[in-house]
């Protein structure tokens, strides 16, 4: 991510600011958009994503709710039933769990149970993932739970421009979207400035961030910068890695993913969520089913360990880092002893 915007005299913004801008623009464009959640009013949210919205749009459109995730999601369902487009903030990944009842039993299936008569345009923003030194319950990667629920769309930006574009697309969608915000990228800056044209990022479309020919790193959200770094480092080993940012986990872009893997013949899926039952298993299976004859090696995964998210002083051992990714990439070379080596 370059500094071109600075050079041009414009100010690059952080992902947090881009999200704030997306909310502001969506609210200005459509009076049906209402923001609600814990501390989203005067405080502007604990990550300041809703900063200033209450001043601009009033408490009715950006209001603090009582502290109750099921209540927040449940009342948002009713508001959406009456034609509003609520955007709900869950304060942290692990605090969304009390709302899962509403999410799974109602949010995800209102369209289905009413045979399409009652769509539910509802955006659920969830700051997720680790790497910020958060204490227990502040660093979960909960995407697998959402992905297991048909009816939900699940997206996660990895760049500042996508943060804006995907959030606008999520709010505009007539179906519920779980919008996962990689909290360790909140303060990352890029070359997008609000003076530039508004970025567009349709739901359901993956994006190649770095073209390459020897293998594809399939990733999303907080792991994208790590994969980019790994790809740069891998050139020293003679690897030319392609880096693919999924952006949207549901709908899933089989087409872009498979086209890339067919080109490179090798794939590694990288994410922070635990590997067992995690998104990587699904992605590896899809790629294997569709690209088997193009594969030079099994699809491998680099994921968080299968442990409850560790305490902050140990999290760097848990999170997929550049070295672990490079080690895994090394294993993509089909050798006689590979099977043995994979037994670890």
């Amino acid at each position, binding site marked *: 991510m370059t500094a071109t915007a600075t050079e041009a005299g414009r100010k690059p913004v952080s992902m947090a600011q881009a999200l704030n801008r997306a909310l502001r623009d969506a609210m200005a464009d459509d009076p049906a958009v209402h923001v609600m959640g814990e501390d989203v009013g005067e405080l502007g949210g604990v990550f300041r994503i809703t900063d200033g919205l209450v001043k601009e749009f009033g408490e009715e459109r950006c209001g603090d709710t009582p502290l109750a995730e099921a209540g927040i999601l*449940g*009342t948002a369902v009713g508001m959406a039933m009456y034609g509003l487009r609520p955007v709900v903030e869950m304060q942290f990944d692990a605090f969304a769990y009390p709302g899962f009842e509403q999410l799974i039993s109602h949010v995800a299936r209102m369209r289905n149970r009413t045979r399409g*008569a009652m769509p539910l345009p509802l955006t659920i923003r969830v700051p997720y993932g680790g790497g910020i030194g958060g204490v227990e319950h502040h660093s979960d990667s909960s995407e697998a739970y959402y992905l297991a629920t048909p009816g939900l769309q699940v997206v996660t930006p990895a760049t500042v421009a996508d943060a804006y574009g995907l959030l606008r697309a999520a709010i505009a969608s007539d179906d519920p979207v779980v919008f996962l915000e990689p909290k360790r990228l909140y303060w990352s800056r890029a070359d997008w400035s609000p003076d530039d044209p508004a970025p567009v990022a349709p739901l359901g479309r993956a994006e190649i961030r770095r073209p390459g020919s020897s293998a594809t790193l399939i990733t999303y959200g907080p792991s994208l910068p790590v994969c980019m770094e790994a790809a740069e480092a891998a050139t020293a080993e003679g690897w030319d890695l392609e880096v693919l940012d999924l952006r949207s986990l*549901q*709908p899933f872009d089989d087409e872009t993913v498979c086209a890339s893997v067919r080109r490179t013949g090798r794939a590694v899926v990288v994410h922070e969520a635990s590997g067992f039952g995690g998104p990587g298993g699904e992605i590896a299976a899809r790629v294997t089913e569709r690209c088997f004859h193009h594969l030079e090696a099994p699809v491998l995964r680099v994921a968080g360990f299968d442990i409850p998210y560790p305490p902050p002083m140990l999290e760097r051992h848990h999170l997929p880092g550049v070295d672990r990714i490079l080690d895994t990439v090394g294993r993509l070379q089909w050798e006689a002893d590979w099977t043995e080596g994979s037994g670890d």
Partner: protein
Amino acid sequence: MTVLEQRGSRNENYWPAPPPAWRPRVDPEPLLPDAEPYRLLGTDAVSRVDSGLLTELYGHLVRGRRYNAQATALTRQGRLAVYPSSTGQEACQVAAALVLEEQDWLFPSYRDTLAAVARGLDPVQALTLLRGDWHTGYDPREHRIAPLCTPLATQLPHAVGLARAARLKGDDVVAMALVGDGGTSEGDFHEALNFAAVWQAPVVFLVQNNGFAISVPLAKQSAAPSLAHKAVGYGMPGRLVDGNDAPALHEVLTEAVERARRGGGPTLVEAITYRVEAHTNADDATRYRTDDEVEQWRGHDPIALVERELSERGLLSDAFAQQVRDGAEELAAGLRDRMNQDPVLDPMDLFAHVYAEPTAQLREQEAQLRAELAAEAEGEAGSGRGPAHETTGKERP
């Protein structure tokens, strides 16, 4: 000084003035429910009930009872997968529907089909959930009836959100949310009441306390003085009413709806009633209650109570009673005939309503099912081969 006395005292030096954002505490006294359930029938106050209302309620109650009986019969014929009857609770169902205006919304649970029908929903559409042909058989917006809700109490926050949204848009809409006694133990019940009170949302919560949550009696469900008392802690009035006294319910609910409409905020109404039948046709109620108890409650039957008042007023002529019975029979016959027709189902609908745009994966799965159905149809058309899933791998190319 005893500990209790200490608790009551206030040391200004120790205890600072609350910050201005703290709201002054609400006086709980006016929010408290009466000690005894509110009644009109059998009391002197019944004289103020309008005769027209009494006859209207009566007609709905008789139809409702017949509807319940017919639906239960349909379970025995295998036409309905299950039916949670509201026999004995018809007064709650009918009153909840009748006090609403056209633009208002009803949020029913699985037991509240009769409330939906009393509000004007086609009885067959009201039964799709229980028949199993689709979850919701009607467009909720057309009738302003939310889908019949199976997970307990989860529809209550929806009612609050919808009522608030309507108020924000400047629309005059009240939401009537129904829940059972067991449902009041769920977290969603508490969160809904709290949100409603904080937002002063135009919602009426009607708890139909029919004594049991499947087999669990109220005493094991809650230690509160009454379920209506729960209102006070949230800052809304609680009302206790005889749930078999249709005019009393009508009055209490009308008051609550009007209060909500005026911007006075939510009310929690507890109606004491009884589930005369088992929890559903699949339940054996003799395992958890006695025949004596049921008989006692049959003596306090909501239809008989109104009937008594109507005859005392000389309003229950043979001709009128016959007319009401005929209407109920007509409803039942129509229901029977239409439910005896097999519903026409399209398996492709499975994929049609998951997302606004089916995903690529859903399209693939749709194609798979279409192929399976085609192979099945071909098999049935006399090729001698069974359905596709019974073919062996060898037969495939």
